[in-house]
């Protein structure tokens, strides 16, 4: 069994390939982080919904899908992309999310100043998304698949911030819900993509 830095053409196709120990550890660590954040993201979404008041959270309420410039959810078409491409998209989205989560946190601090747990969760999520994005980029770099560079962070956050302040409170609540949802989707997608890198994963 030969050991080399490893590459991302398609690790599954060449099962004899294994990563260097420190890289494998890094991949495992990042995957575990993604799995943990997936759970936190679900909790964040629940907490967020609970603080917005009915009908948010009621079964027959489907909030309007307001456009969020600069960041959309993982598209079904991504499934066909090579793993490195998908991890690059994951990293880019994770790079955009902290600023979006911060915009949401600032608006929620006005609306729900007495909901410290929500505000702390939003703050943690921003930090964790940044950490996970950086970790994915490190993995990509180690595997020779350079990340795409600064993602849509500035434009998305600026767009949301502008929309958020101009829009009414209801739109701000819905946009916040959308961001929390996207956070969950991208963290979960990252976890799925990383699981394909984890040997025996």
């Amino acid at each position, binding site marked *: 069994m030969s050991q080399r830095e490893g590459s991302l053409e398609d690790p599954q196709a060449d099962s004899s390939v294994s990563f260097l120990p420190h890289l494998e550890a890094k991949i495992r660590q990042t995957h575990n982080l993604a799995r943990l954040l997936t759970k936190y993201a679900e909790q964040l979404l629940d907490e967020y919904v609970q603080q917005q*008041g009915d*009908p948010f959270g009621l079964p027959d309420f489907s909030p309007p899908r307001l456009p969020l410039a600069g960041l959309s959810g993982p598209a079904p078409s991504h499934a066909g992309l090579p793993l490195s491409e998908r991890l690059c998209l994951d990293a880019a989205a994770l790079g955009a999310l902290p600023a979006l989560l911060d915009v949401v946190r600032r608006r929620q601090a006005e*609306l*729900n*100043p007495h909901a*410290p747990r929500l505000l702390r969760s939003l703050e943690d999520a921003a930090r964790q998304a940044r950490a996970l994005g950086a970790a994915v980029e490190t993995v990509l770099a180690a595997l020779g698949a350079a990340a795409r560079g600064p993602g849509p962070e500035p434009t998305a956050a600026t767009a949301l911030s502008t929309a958020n302040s101009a*829009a009414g409170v209801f739109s701000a609540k819905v946009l916040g819900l959308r961001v929390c949802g996207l956070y969950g989707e991208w963290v979960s997608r990252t976890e799925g993509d990383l699981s394909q890198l984890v040997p025996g994963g």
Partner: protein
Amino acid sequence: LKRGATQDLKCTTNNVQVWDCTWTDPLGVSPGTVKEVCIKDRLRSCHRLQTTNIKIPALSSGDHEVTINYLNSFQSKFILNENDVSLIPDTPEILSLSANFSTSTLYLKWNDRGSAFPYPANATWEIKVLQNPSMKPIKLVSFSTTLSGKDTVHHWNWTSDLPLQCAAHSVGIRWHVDYHHFSGYAGWSAWSQLKNISWTPDSQSSVFPQDKVIFAGSDITFCCLSPTKVLKGQIGNLFLPLIRLHGENVAIHVQNVNVSESSGTNVVFTSIDNVHGTVFFAGYPPDVPKKVNCETHDFKDIICNWDPGRLTGLVGPRNTDYILLDSISGKSSVFQRLEALTNDSCCHLSFSMLPNQEIYNFTLTGHNPLGQAESQVLINITERVAPHVPVSLKVKDINSTVVTLSWHLPGNFSKINLVCQIEIGKGDSEQEVRKITIRGAEDSRYLVTVDKLNPYTTYTLRVRCSTETFWKWSKWSNEKRHLTTEAIPS
């Protein structure tokens, strides 16, 4: 002279001073026939004309004979009395109609042209508001003003239940004038030309009002501009009957709203292909601040705290701000709970003391979007001193029965005397408290002598201070344990 039957001589006036009379010529008189109209007032005046209309200065009270002589020897004669004259003012003209869409308030402005009337006279106005496009009258209001002999611009504003964004509106006005020296009939003017007002969409919002702050317990109407059929409308989890407006636009009306949650109460309209929403904040105006207590710890800052009373239900940017204003100095200090994250962080304010001012006449005003409330408190700050806790206690032996005790007390007490208590504990149960008066100083250490102690004995000492005009004791300082020295054998 043959007498013809003149039909219905009608006289009206639009300003009491000039009568405008018209009649119909008798049969057999062709239109445009020249005639002579003579009116007997103090003097008899005659006017030659072809029309069947004449404007004459207002006649004095009483009956006046009017004769119309036609060239073809017809003559009409009748009696004209002010009682038969109708005062029909000119059609009013609206100067402007504007709207504040965020408050759904219409503002109407018009000129009464009072200079055309003798005065004083009483004008009664009627204003109608129509909701378009059906031109359904939704408001008819009447009220009076006094004509003062000058042109006066009048204002009227009206807040619509239905948000103005959701329907165009038109406004018309008419009036009638009662002038007590005029014995004729006062009739309504014609309605003014309607003025229209409608909203120009300036955002993506489709539900109105947006983010409104209202009194808990009030009634409110929300409306939705929807291109497609709206299926249901709800406030929180309460579904309400839809009121159909123009096109697919709808409204819902709710009565006696509850206090909102922190992030506001959601109003949601679900249409066949979309969800539209807004939020409102139902709460209360600030309560009168209770138990307002102002004191100083250091003669540098005055600290006021108070009980805000009933919770307003409004937080964040809608929270209650407090302003403490001293009417003597005109200085003020502001407390904003915007950043306060917890309830119990309310409510205290710091106000920098002013040199050489002892009396403060404070007004504490709480203000939020629903109103304001205030409390007054007049204090002599020298009588409201609650010193900080004395710190860094030190004990020094003078001899086996006398020590000095010193401590630091932050604050500028140079203008007053301090009264301090020294608690001297011996063993577990024996305690003695001595009281001393010391000249105050600024941010300094204070030193006193404690005598009549026992040699070679362990004491625990602590101190607290107040002022001669007692208000509050400071907290006790930390205890200081001290073993006095052994007596020198005599």
